């Protein structure tokens, strides 16, 4: 009973120190619970075709969240034990047995844990509906969200965290029981001076050099890539990996050595340092930053990773959407033999077809060589492709107004490349000559390369096509010929459903183009003889007879909405946890620094100036890692942008701003408490 009272009293007294920790834990539990509640409420998603994806996404994120929270709790607890070692030693000296002291800490931990669990659960139950509404909005689903109260989620959350707390408390207790008394009594060294030796200077310089070269390589990625041509196509992977390693090592060296060397140089620059309280600020800052090396590095890297992932997801989202516009710009494209049945189905489900358009495609073998921007996207092409006449192209422009207009003579073609949509613009393009396997048309000149496919790249063999003049199209004795009917109608939940029904009905219907090898292929190239065979063998080239746009748009929306949702909340936990750790570390040293600040007051420094230096020091400790993280993310996204060519960073900017805002609140809170702690009463 005495033990319980003591634990309770101590937890209450140290509330200032614990409150941030409890709050961060509670928030993490809120998110954990809400995700669980969302995943375990079946009525919410059962109307959605992607219910399994959502459920699995939420549950697997929860596993990561749990790992992260447990790591955070262990770190914080180790820290608390460190902080209370003198009390532990004193109890021990007064004759209280180690196991009793451990019991006391066990109880204290359990109390704090229960407090954060109760807080987190209450918040979670209150906010679960809001969480659900946000997700529904992000994935663009039309679901009405009622009250979300999942007994299973509550039970699961309580069970999981009780286990974690008990395990954590036992760990602490074991730790305390094995501390030697002498070590406990030793005052933790907070004022340790780190001498700057020659080697440290050198490593500091190396850190800066690594960061600078990584940033340089990222910024001028396309210019330096040709210098790594000897690595072949792997260069595109090896160079970014090299940059990543440089950043990881460089950032660590930067925090461990460069900063110290830099601050030391500033101290030696008397014109700068002999000003008011600067000497003191610089010296204190180097001690403080030195104590924060690991956490600063972690924050920088994690911030960079989350921002990069988020940025790249937005890029992939935009790119996927553009890809979809290339692949399937029209609501439905079907083989002409299926068209009457499809039209009937659409009428039956009251879908108004806005436009209908027939087209004829020919398939033939072709060969050409193309150099693109990075040298590895395209090389030699040899294989079958689809040919369309200029007349059909013009007809398609009525359905796809963004198709560029052009005129062709009988020697010219427009080369359509799907990869172009993903791979960036082709530069330094010379005139390309195209050879066909057809006997009637042997050679053509490429007038223009384009990624805008009439009727969508999904209807082109190999995702590659040619637009030729009507006369050439007539003359071309192709290996195969298909007739297509395009339907255009508006997108809605209803049209998504009807399209999905059609896909389900006709998903077995394919055109198969069976290639037959003739003779020995020259080097790694091979040529094909094509013949059109319906539904016979599993062939190398095939095209579905029916393709629809809207189910794919829904899938994209769900996938990326879920991704944004998960990353948004996960990074919130990350930012709260790391912010709390930096805050705790700073406040822990405050009590030890009281004498220093009292001395400064005696030396004639006003309280205002002291507060100013504290705000400055805590500010740098908080904002430096997050700023460096943002810089790292910027360069990572710069490279990704070269690959994906679609930079929409709104969400990443938003998240970066949220990181900064949360850290600024932490900074303000820390500085305020710090100032109060060192002000003599």
């Amino acid at each position, binding site marked *: 009973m005495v033990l319980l009272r003591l634990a309770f009293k101590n937890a209450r007294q140290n509330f200032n120190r614990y409150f941030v920790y409890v709050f961060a834990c509670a928030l993490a539990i809120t998110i954990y619970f809400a995700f669980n509640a969302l995943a375990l409420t079946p009525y919410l998603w059962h109307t959605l075709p992607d219910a399994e994806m959502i459920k699995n996404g939420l549950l697997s994120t929860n596993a990561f969240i749990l790992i992260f929270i447990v790591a955070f709790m262990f770190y914080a607890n180790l820290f608390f034990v460190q902080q209370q070692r003198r009390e532990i030693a004193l109890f021990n000296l007064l004759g209280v047995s180690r196991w009793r002291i451990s019991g006391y800490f066990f109880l204290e931990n359990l109390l704090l844990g229960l407090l954060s669990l109760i807080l987190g659960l209450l918040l979670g139950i209150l906010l679960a509906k809001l969480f659900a509404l946000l997700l529904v909005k992000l994935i663009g689903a039309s679901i009405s969200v009622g009250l979300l109260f999942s007994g299973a989620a509550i039970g699961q959350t309580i069970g999981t965290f009780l286990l974690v707390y008990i395990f954590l408390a036992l760990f602490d207790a074991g730790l305390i029981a094995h501390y030697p008394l002498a070590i406990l009594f030793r005052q933790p060294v907070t004022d340790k*001076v780190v001498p700057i030796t020659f080697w440290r200077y050198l490593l500091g310089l190396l850190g800066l050099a690594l960061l600078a070269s990584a940033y340089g390589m990222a910024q001028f990625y396309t210019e330096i890539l040709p210098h790594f041509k000897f690595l072949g196509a792997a260069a595109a992977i090896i160079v970014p990996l090299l940059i990543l390693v440089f950043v990881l090592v460089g950032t660590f060296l930067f925090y461990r050595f460069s900063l110290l060397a830099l601050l030391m140089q500033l101290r030696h620059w008397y014109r700068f340092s002999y000003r008011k309280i600067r000497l003191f600020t610089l010296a204190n800052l180097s001690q403080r930053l030195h104590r924060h090396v690991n956490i600063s590095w972690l924050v920088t890297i994690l911030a960079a990773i989350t921002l990069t992932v988020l940025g790249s997801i937005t890029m992939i989202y935009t790119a996927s959407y553009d890809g979809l516009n290339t692949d399937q710009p029209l609501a439905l494209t079907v083989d002409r033999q299926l068209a009457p049945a499809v039209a009937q189905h659409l009428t039956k489900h009251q879908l108004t077809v806005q436009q209908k358009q027939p087209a004829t495609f020919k398939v033939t073998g072709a060969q050409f060589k193309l150099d693109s921007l990075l040298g590895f996207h395209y090389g030699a092409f040899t294989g079958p492709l689809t040919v369309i006449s200029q007349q059909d192209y013009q007809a398609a422009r009525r359905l796809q107004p963004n198709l560029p207009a052009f005129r062709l003579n009988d020697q010219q073609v427009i080369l359509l490349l799907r990869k172009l949509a993903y791979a960036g613009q082709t530069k330094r393009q010379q005139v390309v000559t195209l050879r066909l396997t057809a006997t009637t048309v042997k050679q053509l000149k490429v007038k223009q390369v384009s990624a805008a496919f009439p009727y969508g790249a999904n209807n082109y063999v190999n995702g590659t096509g040619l637009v030729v003049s009507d006369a050439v199209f007539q003359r071309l004795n192709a290996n195969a010929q298909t007739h297509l009917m395009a339907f255009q109608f508006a997108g809605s939940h209803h049209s998504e459903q009807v399209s999905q029904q059609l896909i389900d009905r006709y998903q077995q219907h394919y055109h198969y183009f069976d290639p037959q090898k003739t003779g020995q292929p020259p080097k790694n190239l091979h040529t094909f003889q094509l013949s059109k065979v319906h539904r016979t063998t599993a062939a190398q080239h095939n095209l579905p007879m029916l393709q629809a746009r809207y189910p794919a748009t829904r899938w994209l929306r769900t996938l990326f909405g879920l991704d944004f949702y998960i990353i948004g909340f996960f990074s919130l936990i990350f930012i709260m946890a790391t912010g709390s750790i930096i805050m705790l570390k700073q406040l822990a040293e405050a009590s030890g620094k009281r004498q220093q600040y009292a001395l400064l*007051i*005696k*030396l*004639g420094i006003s309280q205002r100036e002291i507060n100013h230096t504290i705000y400055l020091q805590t500010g740098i400790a908080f904002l430096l890692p997050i700023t460096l993280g943002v810089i790292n993310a910027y360069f990572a996204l710069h490279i990704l942008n070269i690959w994906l060519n679609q930079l929409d960073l709104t969400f990443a900017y938003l998240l970066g701003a949220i990181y900064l805002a949360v850290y600024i609140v932490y900074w303000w809170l820390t500085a305020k408490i710090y100032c109060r702690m060192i002000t003599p009463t």
Partner: protein
Amino acid sequence: MPLIDVQDVHKVYGHRANLVTAVAGVSLQVLQGEFVGIMGPSGAGKTTLLNLMSTIDRPTSGQIFLNQKNVTYMKNAALAKFRREQLGFIFQDFNLLAALTVRENLVLPLTLAGYSVVAINQALQKIVGILGLNSLLNRYPDDISPGQKQRVACGRAIITQPHLLFADEPTGSLDSKAATELLRYLTIINAKAGTTVVMVTHDAFTASYCRRILFIKDGQLFAEIVRQGSRQSFFQQVIDMQATIGGGGRTNGASAPGF
């Protein structure tokens, strides 16, 4: 004109139910260029009085004039400036900043006062010469001996050439050799630069370097002795006075070990 003029100063700590009077109506004056000691048993109020005189603490009642300026009601910012420009401090536990080198510790008061780099370096050279700190400039406080630390603290206190130097048990943590050396420096500073020194101590040997000693007991001035003959005879006088105070029937702890 006195440099320090303390007029009927009281200092009371604590709350209504538990009031402790640390200084109970002390009045004293210190003239320019004096070397004054304040002695008394533990808990007599020596350090409190020193803190009041040095503007670190404020009296509950009474007034204090420093250099004819009433510092009792001065605002904090003005007091900070006043301390920075006019006063120097030496403490028993040195109070050096561990994160700063000896050089940085020494120049700190000058940087705070806004001196130019040239002026700072000149002042530094002068102090380093007087106190023999040349070889220690780039070392950190944790790497030097207590005697050296106190010399650095002393250098920091006098580098601004203050009118008034307050020393609170400056030899408390030093061995006899280092203590003698420090007292010699203080005497030189007092004699040559004309700096007024006010020193709190409970050690008779240390006190014997002063020209005048004020004895405090229970927060009040108890006696005053002035050195007239040699230091040895003054030392004897101090011992006698300590015996007299101790003879009042109170336990005086470390200040009167023989009783």
